[in-house]
């Protein structure tokens, strides 16, 4: 077997699960409207707080849909130590005010994760 496959052909040959390239889902729509710098800063949170801050059923706080003022206050109180934490203190202190504001606006624009049972 020796064949040359481009993306479309790979699909046609059934190598892959068929899904059209552009599925309009809410996560994608939300990201399209965001500034690249905001998306860049906000991606750093996803490894704990879930993709777009939509972590499910977990000890970490979901960030999606959090009001901007709440996010900014939390980050600043972590950074200045007035709110106790494990690692959020030093992490929050590593971001500039502008980055914190951009992240806050990013997460505020993402729909909250809806639990299946609550739909």
């Amino acid at each position: 077997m020796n064949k040359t496959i481009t993306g479309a052909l790979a699909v046609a040959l059934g190598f892959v699960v068929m899904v059209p390239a552009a599925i309009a889902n809410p996560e994608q729509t939300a990201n399209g409207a965001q500034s690249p710098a905001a998306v860049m800063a906000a991606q750093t949170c996803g490894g704990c707080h879930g993709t777009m801050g939509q972590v499910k059923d977990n000890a970490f706080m979901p960030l999606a849909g959090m009001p901007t003022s709440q996010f900014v206050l939390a980050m600043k109180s972590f950074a200045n130590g007035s709110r106790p934490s494990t690692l959020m203190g030093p992490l929050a202190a590593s971001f500039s005010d502008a980055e914190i504001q951009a992240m806050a606006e990013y997460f505020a624009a993402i729909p909250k994760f809806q639990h299946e049972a609550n739909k």
Partner: protein
Amino acid sequence: MSTMNRRNFLKFTTAAAAATPFLAGKSAFAADEKHIVVIGGGVGGATFAKYMRLYAPEVKVTVIERKKEYQRPYGSSEIIVGNVDMNDITISYDALQKKHGVNFVFDTVTGVDFDKREVSTENGTKITYDRLVVAPGISFDYSGIAGMDTEAAQQAIVHGWDAGDQLLTLQKQLEAVPVDGTVVVVPPPNPYRCPPGPYERAGLITQWLINRGDKNAKVIILDPKNGFTTDVTMLQAWNRLYGFNLPKAFEKNYKPEQVATFTKHETPGKIQWVMAEEGGRVVKVDVAAKTVEAEAGVFKADMINIIPPLKAGKIALDLGLADKSGWCPVDQKTFESTLHPLVHVIGDACIAGEMPKSGYSANSQAKVVALQIKALLAGQPTIEPVLQNTCYALAGQSDYGMFVADVFRLKDGKLKRADQPRYLPFNASTAQYRLSAVYLHAWMDSFTQDIFS
């Protein structure tokens, strides 16, 4: 489109595609669509594929991965001590395919023609790309340890550093350690995957032996280094939990008043760390006799776990993407290889300035590269990167956690960590150790969600 509609739509297109594959294929992907091919569906490759599709749904992404399911290395030492089983660390690629529209080819990549921009696989498939992302993880280099250079030796003394059945081998070997036996753990030299990992594993094994009821079992770490990530937190924990005595040569890493708070244990502790300065460097292993010869002397063990020096995954070496160090040099803003254009290397295999080789780093790099590739494909300027790493570790006991956490930015062409504390403070509160352990366990799940669901 609502979630409900999307689900129906997906069902419909999947069914339609199965019935008339050619039509579906044509309508799905227009000829001018860009195609990104990814080698390796681990933390780096899978995160990249998902986020590329989220950030730029118009881009086609194909992952070539040799295994049908992923076994996560992060958190995998807990298999050895029976805290979790293989099912807990095995992850399906279904959501990436069905929910995110990532194409998967389950095959092993054997070559790349960089001029033709074409990847070839073991089964003879050839796939062309507009840009290639390489995330093959690590390979192991036994050449520097006398006695470990044969296949038989490497099957008897395993690393268990890349998930897989070796974890079960280590589990069996641990169960076979006689009461009050000795376990030797040998961490690799820098740089390597998961800097706190070998020490966490030594702690987990110590705790397991204690839980079994052993009064005089011993875990000895023979180290080619004089320190490790999280060392100041970890050594204090061991002093509290396992009768560990601080090596004299390490005292300079604490303030004198901090050293004074360490208990001086009369009987040598259950866990012992022989740092390089005190002769920890291993020179020879006798597999049959179960002895490890270090500069400090010969250690007889009932179980030996050696994590040898590491290099970039074999395919990265074969493709000429690595330099003399065995790791892949990349532009620090875009992770594009400095040796081959249009090829980006992410995860453990790449050289990323001060970023450690960790799952969190691979995940953050993958998202950055997705954003940069999106910009590059659109002919827009690349973006100033911000990256993060968080590695949690246990002291041994399941409720005593710690971490290292850093934010990284580009400074003078290199990724440098922000100048902030990275560990828990010395003498943190009990709540902080406990919470770190809670978050460690939560992270295994939230992190897996972010990559694979």
